[in-house]
Each structure stands twice: as structure tokens, then as C-alpha cells.
């Protein structure tokens, strides 16, 4: 049986010669919550544009609900909902008018539009603000309205390009809760996002793209398992005073007494050790360091996250913006001291 989205050897070369997508293949099954991840410029948006009939592919094949993206574009548009990376609502129109217009553009009957719009306004908690202009809405409200406009015609598949970027945590959680509910009702969701915790929680499968190619594909569990190692974070007392020396001695201990360690790297507080079944190593580690008279201040074990998966396959951390804002905080903190 074919998937609801079937992509095979898809290539997109832009007019200026840029190869944005270099022969990717994947499939999404009906009812799936599918994550499509990758660093900026990896080809995610290009792929979404091709699947949503906004861009012509160069070669390969792509079908949505068994319909060809080139020859059946008008039919595809009737069964998909598309949310852009930017929030797109007409700020001069009210929330209700935005939804009604979308229903009209989807060529629905006016009675059906009215009923559906009332229903949607309740679903996205905008019933009270329905007749205010969208220009007066908060960022979170606009995003919910934008999401609602993609749902007016009861689409089978939702394409969402970073639907929660730039929102405060509360609005973000609200959007994810809506998406979860929609998926439970049977809508297939194809999503790109930077929020890996949510992907981990909600996506049944995901693909990671980098430089126009798919570098990893599978369920979050499978991908994390591939990493194969937990990380054990070790903090040493007085590590800042003679840290170099402590680290060196600790490394010697690790090398001499443990053989299941796959990697050791320096960290702010001491060392990070990567090893399979890390939690079982903790008692041994404590004993070994005690005997070597290296005093531990903290020890923590964490299992691999999608962040680690992403880093392994793309060589980049996904949340560029958040990392830089953390650096900013660090800078200000230091200055205050």
C-alpha cells in the first residue's frame, strides 16, 4: 500500500543552479505524526513547497494521497492544510472573516463554512475574540488563528513549517496540544520544527535532512538507540583551581579501570563520559574515584536525546538561536560580577 506521502528521488535545482534537494526518498503513512528536521538551508522548506504544490520539482516523483504533485495539484490543494513559517493572517480582517475567506477560497458552501468556522473558533479558543481584527491579536492568538485557517476545509494532511517558532512557551504548548488532538482525530501531520522534546513526545517517525539529503530516518527511539551511549556528567571539587590536573588524573582512572566507555570529553564542571548503560557504571565510578582520591562534587546520567541524534548526523546543534541567547545571558552575568 502506498503511503499518504510518497517521495522518491526528489530533486530540486533552482534557476541559479542551487541544488536545494538532492534526491531524497521517504514515505509517510496515513495518520502519522511525521517530523522533518534539519538545520537551516537543509532543504526542508523546499520539500514542503513541492509537496504543497507551491513549487515545481526538477526530477524524481512525489505524491500526496496518491495524487501526483504536478498533474493533480488542484485536487491536492483541496485535501491539504498548509501553515507557513511566518504567521499569515490578514490583520485587517477579523478572526472570523479570515476563516470565512479561507473557506470561500476552498470553495465550500456558505452554510458549511459558517458551521465549521463557529466550531473552529471554539476549538482554538478564539470565540470571544472572533469579531476583533486579527491585527489586535497577540502572537499566540494569531498563530492559533493561522492554524485554524488551515483546518476550515477538514484537510486530511497538515503541512506545518515551524508552527511554534517565536512563540512563548505557553502558546507553544497550546499549539502542540492542538496538533496532538488533530492527529488523534486521524489527520496526518507533517511538521518541521526546532523543538526536539515535542518531536520526541509526539512524532511517531522522523527524518533528518542535511544539505539536501536525508541523513537519518526512523522512530525517535530507534534513532536514539543508534547513538548507543548514555552521557555521564562528572563534576570535580576544586576543578577550577587545579582542574587540568584533576581532569588528567580522572582520565587515567577511566582508561585503566573501565572498558565500556566510548568517549570522554571535557566539560565546564569536569568531564562527560559516554558509555552504554551509563547508570550501571555509577557505583563503580564513585568507588574508583574515591580510591584515586579524586573528589566528585556531582555525578549525573542522561540517556541520549534527539539533540544528540541531530548533532551526530548533521554536526550541528539544532537550536542555534537559543544557544546564542544563552551565551548572551552568560556575557551579561559575567559583567555584573
Amino acid at each position: 500500500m502506498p503511503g499518504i506521502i510518497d517521495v522518491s528521488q526528489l530533486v530540486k535545482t533552482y534557476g541559479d543552479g542551487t541544488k536545494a534537494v538532492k534526491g531524497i526518498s521517504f514515505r509517510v503513512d496515513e495518520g502519522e505524526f511525521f517530523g522533518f528536521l534539519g538545520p537551516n538551508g537543509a532543504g526542508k522548506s523546499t520539500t514542503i513547497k513541492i509537496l504543497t504544490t507551491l513549487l515545481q520539482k526538477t526530477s524524481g516523483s512525489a505524491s500526496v494521497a496518491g495524487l501526483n504533485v504536478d498533474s493533480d495539484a488542484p485536487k491536492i490543494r483541496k485535501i491539504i492544510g498548509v501553515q507557513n513559517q511566518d504567521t499569515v493572517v490578514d490583520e485587517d480582517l477579523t478572526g472570523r472573516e479570515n476563516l470565512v475567506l479561507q473557506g470561500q477560497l476552498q470553495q465550500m458552501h456558505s452554510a458549511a463554512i459558517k458551521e465549521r468556522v463557529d466550531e473552529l473558533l471554539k476549538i482554538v479558543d478564539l470565540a470571544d475574540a472572533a469579531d476583533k481584527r486579527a491585527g489586535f491579536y497577540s502572537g499566540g492568538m494569531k498563530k492559533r488563528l493561522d492554524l485554524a485557517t488551515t483546518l476550515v476545509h477538514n484537510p486530511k494532511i497538515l503541512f506545518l513549517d515551524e508552527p511554534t517558532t517565536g512563540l512563548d512557551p505557553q502558546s507553544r504548548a497550546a499549539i502542540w496540544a492542538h496538533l496532538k488532538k488533530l492527529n488523534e482525530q486521524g489527520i496526518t501531520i507533517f511538521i518541521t520544527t526546532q523543538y526536539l522534546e515535542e518531536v520526541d513526545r509526539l512524532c511517531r517517525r522522523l527524518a533528518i535532512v542535511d544539505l539536501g539529503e536525508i541523513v537519518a530516518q526512523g522512530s525517535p527511539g530507534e534513532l536514539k538507540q543508534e547513538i548507543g551511549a548514555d552521557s555521564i556528567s562528572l563534576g570535580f571539587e576544586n576543578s577550577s583551581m587545579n582542574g587540568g590536573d584533576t581532569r588528567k588524573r580522572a582520565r587515567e582512572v577511566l582508561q585503566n579501570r573501565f572498558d565500556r566507555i566510548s568517549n570522554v570529553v571535557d566539560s565546564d564542571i569536569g568531564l562527560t563520559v559516554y558509555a552504554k548503560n551509563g547508570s550501571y557504571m555509577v557505583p563503580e565510578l564513585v568507588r574508583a574515584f574515591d580510591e584515586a582520591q579524586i573528589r566528585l562534587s556531582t555525578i549525573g546520567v542522561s540517556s541520549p536525546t534527539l539533540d544528540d541524534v541531530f548533532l551526530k548526523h548533521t554536526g550541528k546543534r539544532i537550536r542555534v538561536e537559543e544557544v546564542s541567547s544563552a551565551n548572551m545571558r552568560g556575557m551579561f552575568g559575567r559583567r555584573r560580577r
Partner: protein
Amino acid sequence: MSFFADAFHLFVRSMKKLVRNPILVFFSLFQPIIFLLLFTQLFSGLGRFLGAGVLSYTAFATAGIVLQNAFSSAFQSGTAVVDDIKSGFLSKMLATPVNRSAILFGRLLSDVFRVVVQTVIILVLAYALGVYPATGAIGYLLVIFTVAFFGLAWSGISLALGLKTKSAETVFGIAGAVTFPLLFMSTALVTAGFMPSWMQSVSTFNPVSIAVNAIRNPITGCNVNQTICNVGFDWNTILQAFGVIGGIGIITLGATLYLFRKVVS
């Protein structure tokens, strides 16, 4: 079927946007009204130099002012399209089964409607200032029709520029640079006989002159040079204008359609 329904829905959208941003209407009406109220007073003494038929400079200049208004509001059309491209609203529309050409048609429909409403406002104001149509109500309907037709053709230039450059600033810049030279080298504000001879030659081929002559005839009831009056409709002038505006319209709207297809494909 869906073409007209889609175009109508998008027309309604544009109208709502316009009504809710009265400042836009105000700005495009502001200049023509200042011209009508102050400029015509400033040059009221000019009337008798322009031609035997020119009894009131206000009546003479009304045609030019109406056209100037069509000019400036048509030029806002391209910026509205740029807004839709930049905000992503066009993409959002294109992801629906909406008829592609209807997006453009709805836009043009609202442009024409707007020019008509603004023209009526100016004509009512002119009426209050004592400009009575020499050819009666039919003449005024003809004026409104001609202005609308001109506005449509001129929207095409603005839309094509907007689609090509995707920059509202460029559209405004070019509009500003083009409007006054074309207006001043035309019969919008003076008769051809009043100009230096080189400008007369320019004016003869200036589409603004051709359009303004066709609009002025029903208002003043005089011939092109304003030497003989009470001539009724000067069909030569009017039909020539329709031909020229039609030609411009085919080129500008053709270019718009071509560029629009490129954007939506």
C-alpha cells in the same frame, strides 16, 4: 463558475481592507482635493488665456484632477500585491484551489471600484464649486467610465512593477517620478496652445493628454482646444482615447498577467 465567485470574495476582502484603512483613501484623495480647492483658485485668472471656451478654470482643471486621482490610486495597487507576496498571504492563497486568475481579477475589480468612488467624490466636490456638466448626467457617466478604464490600464503598470520588483518602495518611487512629468507635460492643467512648442509635441503623444481630453469634453462641452463650445460629445476625441487607453491596457495587463503567472507557477 469558481472564477467569478473567487474574484468576488477577494474583491470583498480588498474593499474591507480599504474601508478599514481610511488613511490610504485619504492620502490618495488629499492631493486631488487640494488641487481642486487651492490650485484652481491660484490659477483662476489663467482661464481666459487658455481659450475662448474656458469660462472657469476650475471646470477646465476638473478633468485633469480626476485623472490625477486615478493615477495615484492605481499606483497603490502594486503595493497591495507586494504586501500579499511579502506577508505570505499570496502563498497561502495559492495553497488553496482558488482560481489563479481570479486573484488578479479580484484585485483589478477593487482598484476600478475604488477609482470610481473617488472620482464621484471629486465630481461632487467640483459640483459644489460650480462645475456643472455641460453634457448632463450621461456626460458624467462617460467621464466615470473613461476614468475607470484609464485606472484599470494604469493599475497594470503598478501591478507589473510590484510583481517584478517585489518592493513597495520601488513602486512608490517610480510612481512619484513618473506622475508629475506626465501630468505637467499634458493638457491636464493647461491647453496645448499655452505650452512651448516642444512640450506641445510631447503632450500630443502623452497618453495622459489623450485621456484627459476625453474626460474634459463631457464636462466643458468644448472641443479639444477649448476654442468652440456647446459642441456636445466630441466622439473623435473620446474614441481615440479609448483606443489609446485600450492599447496601454493590453500591454500593461498583459505584462501583469505574464509576471503573475511566473510568480504563481
